[in-house]
């Protein structure tokens, strides 16, 4: 396409828009239907793969949680599309515990496997993906050393529980293109 043709097309589009903005000639056929007069809601699309920064609100760990448990997260950073905030800070999101390995008595560390489910913005669910494997720190060697050196105190150590601490940051990614209604209406 040549530049001239392109310019012509753009100018034509602009003038069409100007005409549309003039309320001089209401469409005769639709004049009786009031909804037609309202401007169409500007649609924004939150593209697939957009990063969403999330914060864990309540600790999830390999001791108290079971597979299937849901936990709540909070959006920690505005998600914007073309300068417009479509998912504000503070929006709730949900995750799920997928697998748990309990802490063993001999110093086996606990394991926790969790995934993100979705966030709830403007009355719709936006599916998220993102996984995190959190292994508890504390190997067999150290716990044994602890038992030897500290007696009772060492026995209580066991292996550590795997945790997603409150305040911990996880990143989720949107799973599909999602049309969003602009909040500025």
């Amino acid at each position, binding site marked *: 396409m040549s530049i001239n043709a392109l310019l012509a097309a753009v100018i034509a589009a602009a003038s069409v828009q100007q005409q549309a903005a003039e309320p001089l000639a209401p469409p005769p056929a639709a004049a009786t239907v009031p909804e037609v007069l309202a401007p169409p809601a500007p649609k924004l699309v939150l593209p697939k793969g957009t*990063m969403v920064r999330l914060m864990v609100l309540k600790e999830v760990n390999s001791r108290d949680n079971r597979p299937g448990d849901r936990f709540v997260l909070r959006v920690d950073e505005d998600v914007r599309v073309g300068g417009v905030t479509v998912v504000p800070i503070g929006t709730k999101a949900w995750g799920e515990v997928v697998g748990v390995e309990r802490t063993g008595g001999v110093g086996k560390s606990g394991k926790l496997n969790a995934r993100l489910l979705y966030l709830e913005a403007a009355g719709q669910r936006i599916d998220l993906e993102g996984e995190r494997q959190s292994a508890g720190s504390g190997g067999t060697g150290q716990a044994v*050393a*602890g038992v030897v050196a500290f007696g009772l105190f060492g026995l209580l150590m066991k292996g550590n529980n795997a945790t997603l601490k409150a305040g911990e940051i996880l990143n989720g990614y949107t799973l599909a293109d999602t049309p969003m209604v602009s909040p500025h209406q």
Partner: protein
Amino acid sequence: MILAALALVLVQQEQTVLPAGTSVRLATLAPIDSRSVKQGQRFALRVTEHVTVGSRVVIPRGTDAVGEVEALSGKGMFGKAARLTLAPLFLDVGGQRVNLVGTSVEKGHDATAGAAVTTVVVGAFGLIITGKSATVPTGSILFGRVRTDVALPQR
């Protein structure tokens, strides 16, 4: 407004798809120490090598990028070392956000063997020997991979 529309059309005409999985070599711009960072904290990175698609440079060397402290385990008792997991997050090029994946783990040295030279703190339970903190010096290399296909303007 016309200019913006024109620019948009031009950008859409000349774009290259940066495929998912493309490797991006990054370097840290400041030291990162397990004692002073928090989980979730972001840090600056810079692209160290041109990223090309065919013969086109789509991400030039020197492009700024952002990484994150993905996990952090503090120095433990009994000489356990700190562990720092860093992940490249994203970079912006030509007005486009490119999300990255990848992790790099830095471990401090365990201090069980040479307890004499490590930090010794007198705590509530008596003597607590701690391991070394983990430090990632300036200029450390991280590798990121492009997370999803991204359409980028040609350069």
